[in-house]
Each structure stands twice: as structure tokens, then as C-alpha cells.
């Protein structure tokens, strides 16, 4: 034990750096960062223990969320997955083909223009999308599908698709554009057309970056709270295969009920359990995304 501690310690500072005071300050800052990041997960875990004890597996498999009686998160989990899946299905083909076109066909100045607009849009706050969602999208969905109400899972999915479009587009475009020009020259020299070059040479070369972009987009869609909360209808129920009904996602449930249970009781613990579930879902996505990137680099 002692030996390994010493070994680890020497790993923390290279050379004689541990003699410098600045090194210790920086190390402290790093410690704060690590504590913050790990603390988030640990807190979620510790706080959700009571509900795990009370409900067991039923917490994830139960359909009924009746405050004070039973807490089952299945309808929120299913809602989150459906909305995210819809958003990704809608956004992906559009974002990827636009990225391909922007990277391979547009002139440099036009490309910068498109990228500029996308990067600005990637920063538009969720609350603004929410405002647009309840004022236009919900009404449009209601009227064009002849529904009784516009606050549906479909509305939320569409809104999320629009929200993640700029992010996925710019990141995927970055990946495509980073493929060295020599690859294209060689491929075209071999007689491939421009489109064939793009699809058979550039896209495979950029695949890790593209997958990263997609996973980031999925994570963003899964965690969005405020815009979804405003349009999803907030009804806890498993929607079956019907997207045109109201539903609930994990973040929207958290956003609606957090104030009521702040800080104590089983209800709070249940909300923390929901948070933990979401955290795991997003972390696994992110982790596999970065792992995938590393793996394909090799």
C-alpha cells in the first residue's frame, strides 16, 4: 500500500515540480475540479439510495409515480427515449447531408457563412426554443395533424431535432473538413467522381468524428429540460407506440417537481434516482463516444 502510494505520488508531479508552490496551487485547483465532477455522481448515488431501498428494481420497472405512495420511473424513461430517438431520427439525415455538402462542395467563404450561422444557433438558449415551441410548433403540430392538443411527444421531438441540428451539423462538418486534402486528390486521381470520393473516402476517414458528433447530439437532446418541459404535456404515462400524445421525460419531470420536494423525503430521493438514471444514460453515451473516437484513431 505504502509503496503504491509513493509511486502514485511521483506520478502526480513530473521532475522536481513538487518543490514549486505554484504546482501545489494548480494541483489544488485540479482537486477542486475532480471533487466537483465526482461529487456530482456520488451525491446523486447517495441521495437516491433510500428510493432504491424502498422500491428496488420496481423503481425502473414501475409505471406509477404516485407521490407519497409509489415511485415508478418507467414512463419517464420511455418518454425520454422516445423523444430522443425521434429527435435523432429527424435531425441526423438532415444534419449529415448538409454537413457533407458544406464541407465538400461549398466555396470557403460560403462555408464560413454556414458555419457561422450554425455556431451562433448552437448557442441559442433552450428557453428561447421553448418560447418558439409553445407559440408556433405546438400550434402547427396540432393543426397539421388534426389533433386535439399540440403538447405531444412528437412536438418535443421536433423541437429537440431543431435544437440539436446546428451542433451535430458543425461538429460533423469539422470532422469531414479535417480529412487531409491528399486523400481526395488521390481518390479523384484514381478516377472516382467527387461524390464517390466524398462517400467512400472522406466519410469513412471522418467516421469517428461524426459518431462523436451524433453522440453529443443525443446527449444534448436527452438532457434538455426547459424547452421540453414547455411543450411535452407533462403526463406520466407510457405512450405505447403513439407519438401524438402527451408524455413526460426525465428532465421535464425533474423540472416540474423539484421545487416541491427540495432536499428531503422519499419524494426527493425518487427525483434524485431519476437524475441518477439520466446521468448514467448520458455518461455511457459520452464515454462510449470518446472511446470510439480513440479506438478508430488507432
Amino acid at each position, binding site marked *: 500500500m505504502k509503496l503504491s502510494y509513493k509511486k502514485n505520488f511521483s*506520478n502526480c508531479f513530473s521532475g522536481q515540480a513538487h518543490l514549486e508552490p505554484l504546482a501545489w496551487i*494548480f494541483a489544488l485547483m485540479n482537486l477542486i*475540479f475532480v471533487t466537483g465532477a465526482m461529487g456530482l455522481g456520488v451525491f*446523486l448515488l447517495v441521495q437516491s439510495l433510500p428510493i432504491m431501498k424502498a422500491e428496488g428494481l420496481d423503481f425502473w420497472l414501475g409505471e406509477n409515480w404516485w407521490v407519497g405512495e409509489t415511485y415508478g420511473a418507467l414512463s419517464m424513461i420511455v418518454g425520454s427515449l422516445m423523444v430522443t430517438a425521434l429527435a435523432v431520427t429527424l435531425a441526423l439525415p438532415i444534419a449529415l447531408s448538409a454537413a457533407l455538402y458544406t464541407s465538400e462542395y461549398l466555396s470557403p467563404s460560403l462555408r464560413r457563412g454556414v458555419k457561422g450561422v450554425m455556431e451562433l444557433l448552437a448557442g441559442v438558449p433552450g428557453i428561447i426554443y421553448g418560447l418558439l415551441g*409553445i407559440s408556433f410548433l405546438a400550434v402547427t403540430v396540432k393543426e397539421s395533424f388534426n389533433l386535439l392538443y399540440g403538447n405531444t411527444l412528437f412536438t418535443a421531438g421536433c423541437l429537440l431535432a431543431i435544437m440539436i441540428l446546428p451542433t451535430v451539423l458543425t461538429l460533423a462538418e469539422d470532422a469531414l473538413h479535417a480529412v487531409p486534402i491528399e486523400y481526395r486528390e488521390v481518390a479523384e486521381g484514381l478516377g472516382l467522381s467527387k461524390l464517390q470520393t466524398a462517400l467512400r473516402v472522406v466519410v469513412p476517414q471522418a467516421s469517428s468524428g461524426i459518431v462523436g458528433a451524433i453522440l453529443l447530439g443525443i446527449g444534448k437532446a436527452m438532457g434538455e429540460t426547459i424547452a421540453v418541459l414547455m411543450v411535452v404535456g407533462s403526463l406520466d404515462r407510457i405512450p405505447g407506440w403513439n407519438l401524438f400524445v402527451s408524455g413526460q421525460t426525465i428532465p421535464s419531470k425533474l423540472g416540474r417537481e423539484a421545487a416541491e420536494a427540495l432536499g428531503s423525503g422519499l419524494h426527493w430521493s425518487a427525483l434524485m434516482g431519476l437524475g441518477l438514471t*439520466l446521468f448514467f444514460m448520458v455518461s455511457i453515451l459520452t464515454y462510449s463516444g470518446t472511446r470510439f473516437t480513440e479506438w478508430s484513431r488507432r
Partner: protein
Amino acid sequence: MKAKAVEKLVLGMISTITVLVVALLITILAVLFVKGYPALHSGFLFEESRDFGRAGGVLYQSAGTLILMITAVLLSLPVALGSVLYQTEYLSSGKLKTFLMQLTYILNATPTILFGLVGYLFFGVYLDAGVSWVTGSLILAVMILPTLQVSIREAVEGLPEKYREAGMVLGLTRSAQIYRIILPQCFYGIVTGIFLGLARVAGETAAIMFTATTFSGIQLPQSYSDPVPTLQTHILILAQEAVNPESLAQAWGAGLVLIGLVFMLTLVAWAFRTRMVMESEL
């Protein structure tokens, strides 16, 4: 012949899609502008809101958003800077480096509402700061750590090797290298990070809506335990009364102010980033 036709078709399709995407997104901006502009009477930025936000301006809401932004970045910057410099300049274990990078990515992808929940429990309940601007700033500071870290790391790692070599030749200690060479040379990268962080905080609602904000009763915080009104939560509350035309108009106005703020910060960040790229090419 057939292959060519297919190629033309595909090309036509993806070019149309690109045009449509750009058009859709520009439409969104246009709608925001058209809807928000009427609310921006001359004093909108400099008046208090009145009558449940149905009249008046958004002076104190803007002030609250600015307070949260600035405190969050001030709190986050030293930690981000320190941890990146530690990782790039001092840490020698490669495994630990990868782990810390993973941590940054995971923190970056964590849904913001979780920062709100956990942050409230830790800062608000355990450290007893309650629902206040301090709690909000602390939560937001943790939230933007990865944003700052990524920008700073990019700048530090992009530093040409010759600078470091020059420092070593001069016999500078590592600390001296850091504040004589690395910090000045990475200045633009750090500033880029700061502005991207500010922009991210300005747009955040979920993490602060039940941890740091109030709708009425406070103008500017007078102590650390006061909540503040913010543009983001102001829009949220007004937007839920979508049948009341005056409320909705005010919400659009506040939305335009908010998006103006975010865009301005992003543009400044870009300006600094271009500067950084230019410097490094010298």
C-alpha cells in the same frame, strides 16, 4: 450515364437540404427579431418590469443575469486555469490525464438540471446559502468548468514548442515559464474560453430556476442570501401565460434581449479566437 444521373440527383438533394436548413435557422432568428422588436420600446432595457411583467422593461432581470454570469466565470476561471495547467505542465501519468479528460467530457455532457438539483442540495442546503444568487453562481461555475477547460487546454496545447524551448534555454523554472511564457501567450485562448463560458451561463435556465431566482420583490441583491430576477426565468413565467398578449409580447422582448446578449458574447469569443489563430501562425 446512369451513375452520373444518380450523382446529380444526390447532389441536388443534399444541396437543397443544406439550403433548407440554413433557411429554417435564419427564419428562427427572423421570427425572434420580428416578435421581439415591437416590445423594445426606448426604455425596455432601462425600466423596471411592472404589473407582473406585463409592462415596463427588463432592467433588473438583465442585471440579475449579468450578476450570475460574471460571478460564475470569476469563480470558475481560477479552477479551470489551474487544473488545465496542472494537467498539461505538471502531471506526468498518462493514465491520469486520460481519466481527467474523460471527466471533463462527462461533466460537459451532464444535463444542466442535474447541476441544479445536486448544487442546490450541496450549496443551498448543506452550506446553507438557500435560494440565492450565490448558490446559483456556484452551480453555474461548476457547470461551465468544462467549457473553460476545453478552450484553455486548446490554447495551451497549441502553443508552439519553440516557446517552451526558449524558456528552458533561458533556465526559467516551470513556474516562471508559466507566468512569463504560457499565460501571456495563451491570453487570447483564455479570453475566448471566458466569453464562451459567459454565453453558456447567459442561456441557462434549468439549473437556476429553482435555485437562484425570484420573479418579483427583489431588484438588486443586497446580501449573499438574496435571489435575483433573471431574463431566463422571466421569459419562462411570462411564456406560460401565452394567452395574455401583453405578457407574450414582453416575453418575446426579453427573449430578444437575451439572445442579443448571447450572440454578442459568442461574437466576441470568435474575435479573440481568430486573434489567437493569427498569433500562433506568426
